């Protein structure tokens, strides 16, 4: 009687209307607390996969369960981090973090204590009254992360959240994300274009092929935790990055 997996997909397919299939025959599961990265060439349906799990769009076939319940179930505890920070520009940083709580009808006192704690956690404890446009791209993404964590989700779906950031900021945020995951214990699904990022963050990497998106390869990442900036200098890490790159190249069209 093991607990139900955090995420379980069986023979899931997705097409929009009469269009070509975007995803075909995707079966996978993620255990609670696991970090899974999804890599693949452009157009392989990585983002669609996340949106399916979030319940933002229905699957065309197959079954999709989050904590044993159908995807999109109101009781599911799922948060989503978009490619862009997607903050409400007219709200302060603090109010942005509190949006999910506000929508859920949380009391003002609870909202304030949660946002203070989370802003401290992402290193923006003193920027609560700023507006999003006064922040850098990396800071905005931190706010977006804090907002995603505001309802203490058990599953976090991240759709290339650091793709637009410079290398240094991205690496630092990777480290912070892992620390947050270690402390929060949530399950993470992380879509990315960066092999290095996927290896650094994940317990397991899924490589998708494109047209239609299919599961091409599963690569376990047995690097020890905690992972820090030092990890990126380890031979094991570098070897894995090289291996995964090769796998990815095998499914990516030339050009």
């Amino acid at each position, binding site marked *: 009687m093991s607990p139900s997996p955090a995420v379980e997909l069986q023979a899931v397919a997705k097409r929009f209307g009469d269009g070509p299939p975007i995803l075909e025959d995707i079966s996978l599961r993620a255990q609670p607390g696991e970090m899974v990265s999804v890599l693949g060439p452009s157009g392989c349906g990585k983002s669609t996969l996340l949106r399916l799990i979030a319940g933002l769009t229905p699957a065309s076939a197959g079954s999709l369960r989050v904590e044993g319940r159908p995807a999109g179930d109101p009781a599911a505890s799922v948060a989503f981090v*978009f490619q*862009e920070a*997607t903050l409400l520009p007219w709200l302060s940083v603090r109010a942005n973090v509190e949006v999910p709580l506000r*929508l859920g009808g949380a009391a003002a006192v609870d909202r304030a204590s949660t946002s203070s704690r989370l802003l401290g956690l992402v290193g923006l404890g003193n920027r609560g009254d700023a507006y999003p*446009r006064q922040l850098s791209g990396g800071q905005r993404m931190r706010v977006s992360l804090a907002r995603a964590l505001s*309802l203490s989700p058990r599953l976090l779906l991240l759709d290339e959240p650091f793709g637009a950031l410079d290398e240094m900021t991205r690496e630092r945020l990777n480290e912070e994300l892992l620390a947050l995951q270690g402390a929060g214990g949530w399950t993470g699904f992380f879509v990315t274009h960066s092999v290095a990022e996927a290896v650094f963050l994940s317990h397991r990497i899924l490589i998708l092929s494109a047209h239609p998106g299919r599961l091409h390869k599963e690569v376990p990442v047995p690097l020890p935790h905690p992972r820090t900036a030092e990890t990126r200098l380890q031979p094991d890490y570098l070897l894995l990055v090289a291996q995964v790159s090769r796998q990815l190249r095998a499914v990516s069209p030339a050009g």
Partner: protein
Amino acid sequence: MPRPNRRLLLPVVTGLLFLGLWQGMHLYLSDDLRFLLPSPEMVWRAWEEHGALLLRATANTAQGALLGFSLAVAVSAGLSLLLSLSASVRSSLYPYLMALQMTPLPILAPICVIWVGAGLRSVALLTFVIAFFPLVVNTTQGLIATDRNLVELFQLYRARRWQQLLLLRIPAALPYFFTGLRIAATISPIGAVVAEMNAGSSAGDGGGLGFQAVIFASQAKYAALFATAATTCLLGFALNAAVLALSWSALHAWHDAYERTDR
């Protein structure tokens, strides 16, 4: 701080150049034709002579303009919410809203007079007709152009319809609304003046600016006509300034249009 100074100085410079050019053109005309283009000085003297009358007329016109403008803001807000509901609602209603906007005021004016009587009511109604279209179009566009990711975010957190409207769509539409408001503020005084020329004066003794313009024209007092035009502009500028101030206070903290240049 050289920047704000320059921004104040530049319109003054262009204004002075314009006045010089105007005066030059007046002097260039032969004596018997100078009445066609009264000099700035003659306009100023006409203002000195008729100023009190024109200010009273401005106050009267302002009543009609503001009443119509406010009515347009109120009605357009409700109508925009309705139009933002669905594309079918929009395609059902837009052609007729456009038809209303395309009908010239002088044609609508006598109809308004039959319906609500000459004077202030007709002027307000006609100003409403001309001011509300840019408001409806802009506000509706703002309400439906909400960032798709933000809408999905709200969906993900199971926001109710009213929450999405109140916390997301309406604030996101504010910049669009203020664009419409500025256009409406600019054309409302024009609408009111044209309405006065066709449907009787706004209110009170001496009539409005439109009425005065008709009188001065019939008396061939061209300098006074120029003074009337300038006074009408003042009304438009005042309304515009009020809208700009309102827009600044609502948007400057967060909207990119007000981003500080030192960043």
